[in-house]
């Protein structure tokens, strides 16, 4: 999960997920934030879903402009489903960046249960990664996985494919090993040749 960099695309996508917030003050001329509002000004007490990056900066001001609520997938009702059987949940539909987003959300969760839910969910769903890596119906198996889970399942499926290829085939054409191909000296030598 190396996505905490400022310019990391995946991190930008994660922080662009919406989070429900309650505005604590009247904000003039900010009515556009609430799609259902008819006035120009945003009234205190309005509940709006705004992207996380905006919510974080509004929340961290003194005094905070918004009170941050948990998105519904991290709330009690969903948490119970996840604790019961996380494998039944279609993460791709519900929350594509469940784990990454959850890490950001965890600090707004006063009870501190979100981080446990994240860990338990990943532990339980590991079985799905395993079966997705060997499944012949790869589309169906990969469908309910979140973005990061999909990446891991794809990597595992690659190994699995290489292994079964090795088991089936007698001989293979020799290719350059990745390690050798990526070697700096070799690259430099190639560059000098051109």
């Amino acid at each position, binding site marked *: 999960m190396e996505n905490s960099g400022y310019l990391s695309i995946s991190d930008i996508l994660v922080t662009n997920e919406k989070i429900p917030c309650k505005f604590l003050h009247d904000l003039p001329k900010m009515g556009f934030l609430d799609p259902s509002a008819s006035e120009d000004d945003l009234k205190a007490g309005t509940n709006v879903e705004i992207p996380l990056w905006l919510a974080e900066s509004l929340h961290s001001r003194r005094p905070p402009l918004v009170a941050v609520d948990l998105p519904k997938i991290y709330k009690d009702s969903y948490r119970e489903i996840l604790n019961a059987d996380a494998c039944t949940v279609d993460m791709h539909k519900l929350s594509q960046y469940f784990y990454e987003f959850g890490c950001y959300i*965890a600090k707004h969760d006063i009870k501190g249960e979100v981080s446990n839910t994240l860990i338990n969910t990943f532990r339980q769903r590991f079985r799905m990664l395993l079966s997705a890596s060997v499944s012949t119906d790869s589309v169906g198996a990969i469908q309910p996985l979140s973005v990061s889970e999909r990446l891991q399942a794809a990597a595992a499926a690659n190994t699995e494919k290489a292994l079964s290829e090795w088991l089936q085939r007698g001989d293979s054409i020799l290719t350059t090993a990745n390690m050798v191909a990526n070697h700096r000296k070799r690259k430099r030598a190639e560059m000098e040749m051109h």
Partner: protein
Amino acid sequence: MDPYEVEFIGENRIISVIPNFSYDKIYLICGEFGPFRAGLPINVPLWLAMMLKQKQKCRIVPPDWMELDTLENIKEEEKRSRFFTKMPNEHYMVEAKLILGAASEDVPNAAEIKTIIKDIWDIRMSKLRTSMDALMKSGGGYGRLDHLTMMEINSAKPLLPSAMDYLLQIQKKAQQRVQQPSALNTSTFSQSGSSQNT
């Protein structure tokens, strides 16, 4: 690692061949082999044995474990045990695949042996999968890889370490944020921090 790279490493195992030619000692990076005398068994690396076999210059002496009774026992043992049992050889799969692929006529009951080795492999692979799942579910921080061969470890490779790594990252990030001292409500945060460790 690619399975072919593991195979390459496994090809350094020494096996016994009976050459049908005579030749002086040969000097290789991995050591000296020879002199070759026609009809006398000699130990050479697996890759050399394969090469000689393909040129029809030798007959391969199958390793001791490559016979039905031994393998039958191993298979039974593997089925019975909850853990992985010790394999006769760190690269049993590579050795079996190469020898049975290139020199099946030198091994008695080659077809049965092929099946039984594949059975053992399948049992072990499914065991590996279940134990990986159990490891993740139970929340263990490490797994013991006793008696697993290189090819088997390699098959678990990007998935298990990356999943463990991912789990650690979540743990670090989520907890660090929870425990972060905040001017607002430190008391609730410290309370939640302690529940993490249970």
